[in-house]
């Protein structure tokens, strides 16, 4: 059993403490927006926020996440209003298949909360998610659009 606080809600989940947070979120809490891509903290598809910091949820256990504020892609919009990153993603038509984009959006949202006006170098350093469709150009453009708004 574990108590997780996800998107402001407390979930009491029947999981072993060493279960990767990713699978507890997807399978036990039933929030499937967070994606599995590699399971070894390489691709970023599973990125969530832990106390506001972007983390790869496949590399964190449930016990490590207990007591922290977990935000997933489903919790990014507040009160039905999309987060500015989601809005920019729609306006700039960023996703292709979209599978990496939950993680991409979470990583970008964390970057922007830390650095509202990131330079290209900041983006290069902070955004290390894999996108096999190759949406990097639109990702960068959308970030700059948000930063200059």
């Amino acid at each position, binding site marked *: 059993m574990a108590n997780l606080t996800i998107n402001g809600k407390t979930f009491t989940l029947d999981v*072993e403490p060493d*279960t*990767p947070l990713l*699978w507890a979120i997807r*399978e*036990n809490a*039933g*929030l*499937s*927006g*967070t*994606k*599995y*891509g*590699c*399971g*070894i903290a*390489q*691709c970023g*598809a599973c990125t969530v926020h832990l106390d506001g910091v972007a983390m790869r949820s496949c590399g964190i256990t449930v016990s490590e996440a207990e007591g922290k504020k977990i935000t*997933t*892609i*489903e919790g*990014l*919009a507040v009160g039905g209003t*999309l987060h500015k990153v*989601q*809005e920019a*993603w*729609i*306006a700039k*038509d*960023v*996703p*292709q*298949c*979209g*599978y*990496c*984009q*939950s993680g991409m*959006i979470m990583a970008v949202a964390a970057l922007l909360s830390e650095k509202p006006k990131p330079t290209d170098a900041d*983006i*290069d*350093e902070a*955004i*290390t*998610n*894999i*996108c*096999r*469709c*190759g*949406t*990097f*150009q*639109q*990702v*960068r453009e959308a970030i700059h659009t948000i930063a200059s708004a």
Partner: protein
Amino acid sequence: MNKHVSPKMNRRAFVIGSAAVGAGLAIGLDIPFGGPTVVRAADGSPEIGAWVVVRPDDTVVIRIARSEMGQGSLTGLAQLVAEELECDWSKVTTEYPTPGQSVARKRVWGDFSTGGSRGIRSSQDYVRKGGATARVMLIEAAANEWKVPASECTVARGVITHKASGRTTTYGKVAEAAAKLTPPADVKLKDPKDWTIVGKGLLRLDTADKTTGAMTYGIDVKLPGMLNAAIKDCPVFGGKLKSYDEAKVAGMKGVKKVVKVGDTAVAVVADTWWHAKTALEALPIVWDEGDNAKVSSESIAKWLAEGLDDGQPAYVGNKNGDAKAAIAGAAKKVEAVYSYPYQNHATMEPMNATALYTADKCEVWCGTQNGEAAFAAVLEASGLPAEKCDVHKVMPGGGFGRRGQTDYVRQAVMVAKQMPGTPVKLLWSREEDMAHGRYHPITQCKMTGAFDANNNLVALHYRLSGQSILFSLRPEALQNGMDPAAFQGVAQSGEAAIGYSVPNLLVEHAMRNPHVPPGFWRGVNVNHNAIYMECFMDELAHAAGQDPLEFRRKLMGNHPKHLAVLNAVAEKIGWNTPAPQGVYRGIAQVMGYGSYVAGAAEISVTEGSKIKVHRIVASTDPGYIVNPAQVERQIAGSFVYGLSALFYGGCTVKDGKIEQTNFDTYNSMRINEMPKVESVMVPSGGFWGGVGEPTIGVAAPAVLNAYFAATGKRIRSVPLRDQNITFA
């Protein structure tokens, strides 16, 4: 239009459609396309021909048979229908008919397969006619109601007007009446110059859910009572499952059952996938690896190298003059051997499918590039007839050719068949996905070029040795056992024709098929052929002491469309002006999938091995462009995919198995490594080419040629990581 309620994939209809699939089939079976009886969508709205459903609120549902997998075809196809339909784009939504419904209606939606960059080019004609047919019927219905000639009515954005009497109505209001009309026998399509929706860089129809986590991919399918399965197939291709010790994992948390899947694989079924995977890792498995366990990358390379030898039989794909004689008598010869490795598609979402099997029904939910092939796999694996099977397509997390295959669908059904009545989602781990790809074929190529005394290229011998995809996947497409697709990009004519005229030319292929299963990997045979030809053209230019662009131009007089895209990139990158200090350029062109493409790169190299790509310019002539914004994304994405394969890719074989296991050993480019791609679109009209794949062909050679310009070193094999060359 409020962007947050922008039209998107109609998931509600999908859900209803899935629940009511039996009913849908019954209707379709009884009533042929068209005619006086109304065919209705799942929500009761009438079909106006098979491609269009109009709801009372004027929403237009456009049926899409091909698969969206990120490439944007869903939006492009909807644009083509909407253009002829003259409907209001802001009221357009889309839905997938199921393959089962299509079969029941005599394939009224045509081909479902989505590969070979064919999604739009091979269906543009009939989907446009579908839109035009519906428009004619809707206008006729209004005219009938008003008792005026249809020719006096006009339509714009779904509003029909009879000017003389000042009356107007909308598509939604006349849809019921229109659905009862007999479709016109023939319709005239618009002149492309009159297009208002096609040719526009409209936003995709399926974006919103991809930003909120709401989009349902195969991995996200949830059904009541569903269990999850993790699978291991024999890591040596062609090997078999010998035994496993179920008792060792039977008591592990959540485990429900361990099942044999065919002769080669074993799966653990559990309450959650994490439990299934954990138990599968703990399951003792004995494989019968067979003879293929002796195969390695070295043994494959040796075998392929033998095929480069002239003495061995080969299949001639393109020929004029007598290349061998001309080479023998030439003033100067240049020779080089290149190679290209296996590549995994590594779609962002690993393979998966969810199956529900009962004694009289089998349904599958999955991402697939070919709904009909998946359907056929369900029939075969379930043993049930067509009317008792169906496939519900969901969004795939990438395809790139991998999801045209149906191995994972078949497996899911084989697992579900052993758990009748219980839906089972089978998900591959990334490791399984790396180990059981349908890999980009492995090849080598020996090229010999010959010059006369004035440095004119008089002969070219292009000898490929290596794997045939068709041999493995579509043997019926072979010609006398030979593979004509091997010459994609260097063929004599057709949709992937060579862009050079050489007086004496011999292009041939010695087929060598190792045991590693090949597949259609984005770009397919264009990838290696473009590297071989375009890097060797560069070698020849340097050997002749000529500028690589000028050298090519001299050979391209009879290939104006190839030349036009090459000129377009040369101009845009400023080929004739000096590059910035320390920056070097490379250029390449190829034709594939009916389109002409070229690319140029500007790079700098530090310490001889650290490459920074500063600029990429790419041009394309696909004849017509349906959505330039999506074409631009396909071009940029092709560079990411192609350069990832060049720098980080390459799957190697040891003891008959693929050695790469995950993104740590099979890496992919990140944002910091990718410059902006400047695309130049030069659609010349009169033909329809694809855009998802051709550009990938020029990505690697443009960079490799720039690397030579920078260092004087010629790279003739992929990936660069094997040569300790990486991104700066």
